[in-house]
């Protein structure tokens, strides 16, 4: 099957800045893919190259098998992009903006689909309101709508929930998830790691223009060495050897300890038994994506230095 997105050894230089330093990436059709990384890692630059908004210094990018430079018409027809910046055209109403966008893709008489998109994004009530008069959240919805007018098989969302309230965020994700279930490939960048963890099947982490991790979300979570244990004990004293492992003192005299792996739970229990400490409550916790992210980014830093 044709890959939804295929990026091969992409480099992008702005003068002396090496914004992308050899990115290769394949995204299958139907994936919900996350692109994570700190500010300035190159996420938006990579998306811009895939969308044809920026030209790569070297390397190639394809959308649904179409080269984004050689075969830009088909590549762009296959792609819908929700840009990060809250941009809008102040001359038009919501409906006009969507109709015009649809026309740019060569689609006439698209009103039925436009109505449907507006309905899903809860924009019907604002259809004839000028873009200028909309709130930030509403403008964001229109941007999503504009990316969908031509029913693209691949949809890229560049931080779509930045500065968006909880209600809209959830509505937006429900809609995006539905699009994914309907077969659309979704590529997402976000700073909300819990969102990425909940939504994305596979994740690439970028740092300084390079991919530092690329795996399924589950594998990434598993790869994080270690786990956490929360303990409430009697008496309130940990054996000497384990006291150094406390990462946090919790309310009610409980401790949070970082363990290297699950096997250590056993040695911990043995040590507690030996010290005649009674365990009142205990919870073993998986690390979340945020911890994995921090760990990978730190590892990338130590590799560099």
């Amino acid at each position, binding site marked *: 099957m044709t890959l939804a997105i295929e990026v091969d050894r992409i480099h992008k230089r*702005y003068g002396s800045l090496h914004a992308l330093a050899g990115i290769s990436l394949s995204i299958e059709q139907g994936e919900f893919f996350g692109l994570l990384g700190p500010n300035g890692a190159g996420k938006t630059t990579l998306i811009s190259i895939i*969308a*044809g*908004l*920026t*030209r790569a210094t070297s390397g190639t990018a394809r959308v649904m098998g179409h080269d984004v430079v050689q075969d*830009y*018409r*088909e*590549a*762009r*027809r296959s*792609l819908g*992009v929700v*840009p990060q*910046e809250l*941009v*809008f*055209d*102040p*001359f*038009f109403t919501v409906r*006009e903006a969507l109709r*015009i*966008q649809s*026309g*740019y*893709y*060569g*689609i*006439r008489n698209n009103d039925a689909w436009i109505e449907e998109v507006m309905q899903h994004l809860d924009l019907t009530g604002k259809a004839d309101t000028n873009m200028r008069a909309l709130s930030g959240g509403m403008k964001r919805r229109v941007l999503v709508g*504009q990316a969908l007018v*031509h029913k693209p098989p691949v949809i890229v969302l560049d931080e779509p929930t930045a500065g968006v309230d909880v209600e809209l965020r959830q509505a937006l994700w429900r809609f995006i998830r539905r699009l994914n279930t309907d077969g659309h490939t979704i590529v997402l960048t976000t700073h909300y790691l819990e969102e990425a963890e909940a939504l994305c099947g596979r994740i690439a982490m970028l740092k300084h223009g390079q991919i530092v991790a690329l795996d399924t979300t589950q594998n990434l979570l598993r790869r994080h060495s270690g786990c956490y244990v929360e303990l409430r004990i009697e008496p309130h004293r940990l054996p000497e050897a384990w006291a150094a492992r406390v990462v946090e003192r919790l309310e009610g005299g409980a401790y949070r300890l970082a363990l290297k792996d699950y096997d250590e739970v056993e040695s911990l229990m043995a040590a507690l038994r030996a010290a005649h400490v009674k365990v009142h409550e205990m919870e073993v916790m998986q690390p979340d994506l945020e911890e994995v992210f921090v760990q990978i980014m730190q590892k990338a830093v130590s590799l560099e230095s």
Partner: protein
Amino acid sequence: MTGFYTLFYKEWLRFFKVSVQTILAPILTALLYLLVFAHTLRTHVEVYPGVEYTAFLVPGLAMMAVLQNAFANSSSSLMQSKMTGNVVFVLLPPLSHREFFLAYLLAAMARGLVVGAGVFLASLWFVDVPLAHPLWAFAHAVGGSGVMAALGVIAGIQSDKVDQLAAFQNFVILPLTFLSGVFYSIHSLPLFWQAFSHVNPIFYMIDGFRYGFFGQADVSPWLSITIVASSFFALSLLTLCLIRSGYKLRR
């Protein structure tokens, strides 16, 4: 074609929705020029035998309106889109560089021609202007608006800020239009400035346009239209290359 047509229509709507500012205001400005200059100079100047100065002035002012508004439309539209970031709406779709260029070009020409026609029609209230060779007038109006619309696309792509575009407008476009014989025949100028006017393409636009009204001009209309048409094709080619290369649009 739908893509091109939509972009053209969008550009048309963009200025038509604010037509008080984009159409009526320049017409009013031109009429004020006409009233003031005609009132002060009517009795002193006769440029062509048998042509009253007020009548002589009308084609010049109409053409100036055509040129300035064609330039203003494409340049400000592109520059504003770049500044606000909504230029992505036209960069993301599968529009070719030809569609992109033609849409901005034709919409800008349309605004120039609408304003120019407005100036001409409104001035007919004040003064009788003959129209000896309408085709010559029309050809020069179309050619002139095309040159300036293409120049506007280049200026819009080149400018990142309002003041860069304003500098282009104030230090290039405005002097060239004012020194092109809008208000006078260049034969009334000292020799040096006559020679200078002959390398100014805008002079040929206005001179050829004026020929269409009075049947007389400083140079042959064939020479004028040749220069206007070649400027147009050269600028169009340059603009197409710029858009295709992604210069300042797809960095």
